[in-house]
């Protein structure tokens, strides 16, 4: 028999739920969905700023309702893929780099006809950059939006604490070390500096006998927020696919992987998997530099601002070290793509031109990118410094070594470290697995792991045929 208590529970439950059921809405104008996640834009402070852009756009007209969708970068590829499969794809995707574009071959709309129909003026872009987005067999997949050169960032306070000189301030300059000896600013020199900046809990550094590798509290160097291809590019540009479409491990990358493995597991000046997810390196966020426990990182322009939001230390830019006399500063070039499944490509193009035109200035500085529009490049540094100062006053933006950032554009990686591969998502998943394996195991045989990687990639490429 139902007791009073049971009935009461049942009733309360129904009541709560009934009220909730009343909370449902509806709306009408053409909906354009803007998907953010394949590149910059997913970090918390940017979310609000992008929402503002969306609100501005929606207020400026009635025909289109722009909706923002932000998915965490790690999940963004799977989610977009599932959305495409579900016939629920967004209209506009971006900002995204080459990796984003290459991950979804055939999914992008050729903008050529829309550019012509709208008489869209492309004269404000470097023609070479426009060609960058023209993919054979697929068409003009994007209009240039922003470039993100990479550079070295170093924590001035940590150099001071260690009492050693700062890295050079321009490409080609030498490094005068703590003994007054001039050194080429190459990977070996970087390693020496990084060792001194790697410190254990007792204050011993990685050059010392007493260095306690089980209790490191500060690291010297790291390639932050990148993968195996990204970090190997420090040694030189290459790819896992050769001209014939076969899987290869380029020699220069094999050398790089040995160097990284040693740095993580013998010298301990780069965080291995054990340390990289640890609390002293920022835990799940893996934002090493922001913790103040990281001496130097390589990173891209999009990192600026939000990337150092919690960092209570001075820092500056420096050139990426060279290898065999050549410095390679890997490059990200972003755009927005329109998905070819969009039911309203015209409206999507309207939004696209809004983002790439009227809002290009504030959006590029928001993402920390250098605008692709030539007319906006002139005062790019001043504008970025001003915009960043407003949101992140903890950094003296105007007095940073911006020249070295711009100089990085002269050292791009070609082929790009995000270049396409057959079965892109599967192949990426496989080489990430390789990365997990060697970064998590000190005694792993790097050569054997790389050979296994090559064989598996070959199998994945073959299955794609």
């Amino acid at each position: 028999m139902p007791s009073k208590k049971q009935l009461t529970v049942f009733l309360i439950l129904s009541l709560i739920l009934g009220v909730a059921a009343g909370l449902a809405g509806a709306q009408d104008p053409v909906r354009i969905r803007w998907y953010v996640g394949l590149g910059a834009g997913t970090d918390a402070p940017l979310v609000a700023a992008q929402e503002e852009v969306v609100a501005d756009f929606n207020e400026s007209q009635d025909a289109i309702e722009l909706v923002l969708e932000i998915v965490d970068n790690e999940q963004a590829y799977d989610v977009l893929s599932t959305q495409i499969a579900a016939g629920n794809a967004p209209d506009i995707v971006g900002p995204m780099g080459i990796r984003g574009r290459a991950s979804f071959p055939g999914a992008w709309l050729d903008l050529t006809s829309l550019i012509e129909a709208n008489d869209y003026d492309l004269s404000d872009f470097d023609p070479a950059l426009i060609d960058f987005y023209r993919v054979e067999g697929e068409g003009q997949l994007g209009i240039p939006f922003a470039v993100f050169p990479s550079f070295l960032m170093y924590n001035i306070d940590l150099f001071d604490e260690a009492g050693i000189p700062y890295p050079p301030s321009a490409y080609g300059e030498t490094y005068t070390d703590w003994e007054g000896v001039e050194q080429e600013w190459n990977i070996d020199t970087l390693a020496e500096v990084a060792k001194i900046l790697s410190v254990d809990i007792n204050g011993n550094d990685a050059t010392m006998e007493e260095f306690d590798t089980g209790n490191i509290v500060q690291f010297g160097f790291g390639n932050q927020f990148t993968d195996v291809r990204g970090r190997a590019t420090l040694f030189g540009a290459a790819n896992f696919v050769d001209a014939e479409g076969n899987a290869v491990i380029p020699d220069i990358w094999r050398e790089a992987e040995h160097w990284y493995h040693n740095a993580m597991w013998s010298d301990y000046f780069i965080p291995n998997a054990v340390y990289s997810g640890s609390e002293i390196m920022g835990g799940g966020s893996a934002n090493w530099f922001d913790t103040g426990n990281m001496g130097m990182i390589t990173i891209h322009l999009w990192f600026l601002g939000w990337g150092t939001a919690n960092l209570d230390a001075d820092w500056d830019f420096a050139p990426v070290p060279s290898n065999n006399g050549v410095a390679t500063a890997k490059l990200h070039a972003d755009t927005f793509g329109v998905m070819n499944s969009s039911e309203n490509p015209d409206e999507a193009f309207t939004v696209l031109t809004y983002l790439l035109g009227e809002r290009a200035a504030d959006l590029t500085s928001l993402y920390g990118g250098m605008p692709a529009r030539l007319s906006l490049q002139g005062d790019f540094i001043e504008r970025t410094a001003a915009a960043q100062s407003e949101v992140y006053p903890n950094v003296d933006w105007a007095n940073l070594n911006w020249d070295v950032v711009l100089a990085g554009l002269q050292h791009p990686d070609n082929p790009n470290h995000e270049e396409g591969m057959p079965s892109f998502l599967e192949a990426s998943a496989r080489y990430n697995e390789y990365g997990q394996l060697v970064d998590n195991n000190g005694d792993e045989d790097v050569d054997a792991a790389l050979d296994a990687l090559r064989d598996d990639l070959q199998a994945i490429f073959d299955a794609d045929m």
Partner: protein
Amino acid sequence: MTDSKGKNLTEYEIRRRRRNLLLQASVTLFALAILAVYLMPMAYGVVTSLKSKAQTSDPGAPVWPAEALSFEYEGEGYDILQVPTENGIRHWALVKKGRRASQFIDPANPAGGLIDWEGNWRQLEPVREFAVQWDNYPRAWNTIDFARLLANTLLYAFVTMVGTVISSACAAYGFARFNFPFKNLLFMVMIGTIVLPPAVTLVPKYAFFINVLDWGGTWLPLIVPAMFGNAYNIFLLRQYFLTIPREMEEAAQIDGAGRVRTFVAVILPQAVPALTAVSLFHFFFAWNDFFEPLIYLAGNREANPITVGLTEFNGLYSSETQLILAAAVIAMIPPLAIFFLAQRVFIQGIVVTGVDK
């Protein structure tokens, strides 16, 4: 020695009672110890959700919510450390760090200028103060847009709860009271669906809902199938219906009531406890549902339920442990509250059938 009724107790009796008491105490203590370990993560979740961001990532910080003290000197904040000196431990702010020697300032006497100290500052402990960040809760609530997630989840849970309970009750009644061809075979098949991996039916269902019906990004693929009942609920309700005496239905039928009327007017009112249990089961199931919303809603954030919203939040704000845990605590309050209110009905439901979802 006497007991409360004043009777003399034999020595044996006393010893037996003592032994019992001892046994009782040790068993209970043992259970409490296990319980403490078992529930520890909950306590951890609540405590950590009240900490500052800085504290959550500081391995040396105490377990309770606390904040490291700092001292402002010439416009900059510096951490106050416990510095051993000739005059005992002093609380000084660390201004200039060095590997072998550092410079401090005494907050009690900033005019005294920088004090040189020989030694390694990394070996010094910071000075901390108890501080609870209640603010984390409203922040988590707003950042994750909890109101919308909650409305979505409740709407989904409620609609499917009503639908599945009604259809399950019908089917349960059919299995409990009627004879029809292949009844036992069908009953067996029904139970069998419980061990069928959902993955087997997932791909065609997905293709059908998405490609044929164009239901991508909507709740329909989740709601519609639930309207046809489900094996757990049918089984539980059938078991309950079997315990209801047939005489009551027969009396109703003599009064001229039809089958449907008998079911609605006689059986259902008798079965309120079981119906409540089934409703609660379904409610908790829906509250927990993750995989299907993940796939069918496919990033349609507007429609996300709490579970999917929480995982997204976890990804986007991975460095804000305290906010993520605050969100997790908020998400577990409603089911826990309902459970504590209705635990008798609920536990009874599980025990009756030996079934859970």
